């Protein structure tokens, strides 16, 4: 009797697993199809695009779609702009976060808690609220259509400061004291001890910030007016928008989308675990 019920629950468990697999597979397919559709369209001939029922696999891979897409907009320039914005922005924000996290956890000061509260308070002010005044500031500083205008307004750091402060606080003070006895200063303690020890956190933070900055759309849209200063997302949106007469084929648009997404696809493929971890850390702690 007992073994029978045990067998029953085992069967129930197997059935449950099977149902779960089916449901999850359907979900994965529904999420995956748009990506597949984008990739396959990017390789199609126009006759395979303008047809119903849809053609799933193109008869011949149309590589020239990518050449045509690349020429539609100055994508090379957009790539350079996006790369400069992402690299300088990420490095600057990680450094700013590291310096403030170190000061807030390893340097004694009367105002330490207050300074930390001020930084946390900044989190309460949504970035959307700052758009108009920051545009005015950028305009007054002559930062419209410049890299400093793209980068500097968003390099102050709550999330990174919080994350690194946690990491630095959990380190034992003896390591730092020993270094100080040997005559090391704060700069060495930060970059020679604290940062290397917090390497996994620093890596997660760096990846998180890099993807966020690479994908940023609204601020670059506001702070750039000339074509030469647009970043990839803004340029891509212009490509979609300027096509009011439909001269750009869907196959060319999808080719452009693919060209823009490839670096992030590669990054996601290589560092998926860490990126997911960064996002959930950001959600639960930030």
């Amino acid at each position, binding site marked *: 009797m007992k073994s029978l019920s045990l067998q029953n629950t085992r069967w129930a468990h197997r059935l449950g697993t099977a149902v*779960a697999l089916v449901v999850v597979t359907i979900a994965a397919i529904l999420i995956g199809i748009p990506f597949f559709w984008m990739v396959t369209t990017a390789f199609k001939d126009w006759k395979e695009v303008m047809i119903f029922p849809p053609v799933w696999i193109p008869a011949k891979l149309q590589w020239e779609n990518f050449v045509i897409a690349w020429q539609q907009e100055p994508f090379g320039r957009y790539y350079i702009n996006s790369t400069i914005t992402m690299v300088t922005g990420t490095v600057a924000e990680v450094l700013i976060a590291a310096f403030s996290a170190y000061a807030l956890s390893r340097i004694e000061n009367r105002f330490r808690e207050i300074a930390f509260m001020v930084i946390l308070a900044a989190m309460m002010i949504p970035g959307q609220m700052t758009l108009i005044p920051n545009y005015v500031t950028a305009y007054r500083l002559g930062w419209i259509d410049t890299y400093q205008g793209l980068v500097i307004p968003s390099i102050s750091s709550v999330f990174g400061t919080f994350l690194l402060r946690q990491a630095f606080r959990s380190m034992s003070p003896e390591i730092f004291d020993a270094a100080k006895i040997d005559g090391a200063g704060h700069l060495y303690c930060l970059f020679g001890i604290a940062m290397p020890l917090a390497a996994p956190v620093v890596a997660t933070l760096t990846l998180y910030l890099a993807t966020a900055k690479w994908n940023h759309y609204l601020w670059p849209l506001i702070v750039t007016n000339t074509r030469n200063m647009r970043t990839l997302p803004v340029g891509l949106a212009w490509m979609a928008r300027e096509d009011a007469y439909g001269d750009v084929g869907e196959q060319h648009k999808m080719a452009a989308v693919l060209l823009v997404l490839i670096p992030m696809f590669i990054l996601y493929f290589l560092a998926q675990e860490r990126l997911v971890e960064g996002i959930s850390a950001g959600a639960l702690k930030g």
Partner: protein
Amino acid sequence: MKVIPRSSESRGQATLRKRGLSRRHLREALTFWAFVGPNLFLFGVFTFWPLIASGSWSFTKWDLISPTKDFVGLENYQRMIADPIFWRVVRNTLWVAASAIVIKVPLALVLAVLLNRRLPGSKLYRAIIFSPTFTNSVAIAMVWSWIFDPFYGLLRAPLDLVGLTSPDWLLDMRWSLVAVIIVLTWQGLGYSMVIFLAGLQSIPAVLYEAAKVDGASEWALFRHITLPMISPTTFFVMVTSVIGALKVFAIPDVLTDGGPLYSSSTYLLYLYENAFNWFRVGYGSALAVVLFFFILLVTFIQNRFSQRWVHYG
């Protein structure tokens, strides 16, 4: 306390030591401010000052260019109440928030619970379902606007199969917001799911084992252990989804440009339009102030009520 007789020599030593100490203190203080200073300064200029500026500009009429701002009192706020487009975008934004709570969050919870069963290949599934979170919103909107094409789009295929004609998703006032919501759900599902997965992993396995010994069914386990134990996460995901709805921009901007006739426009899109297309800085600032207070209210509700509604394990 013992009084030490002060010889001239020891006094000299004391001041010397004190001076050395204070010099070190000064250096420590300077280092502290040099280290946090940049962050605080940037927050001051690009976060705190904008709060004050938005607040004060919301009482003015200004076009970004002219040197003077005219004080108009509460006119911008009065105009907002009388502005039918304002109410339209508020309604659309609330629809986006409601769809997240009713469709996206439950779906994400179900997927997370299923993936948490240690299915074969669960990491791959998680990676696929999470991937839209990392994909550029502009790119997503472009792919979906092609999927929504009423003649050659992919979405026509399943509709054809059940004998329905595809609506002109992006150009039909009745469907444009639905299209935006479909894309936002597709994009945001994985993020909510990953948060749920993190929450599920923090539920102690002992609870399930004990209940299983008592012969509880899978449904009973879900209903009486998972659901109550995960409630803080559920609450968190719902609150962030509501706040997220207020910040939706890129998807409707690229997909429909908020149209036709504001049928799929959102709060932030309207704010952007006012400030940067029509240079109505005063009105745009008033919209920003209302947005700020709404987010503050939602956060306050979260803090105030989460203890009462939610079981913290």
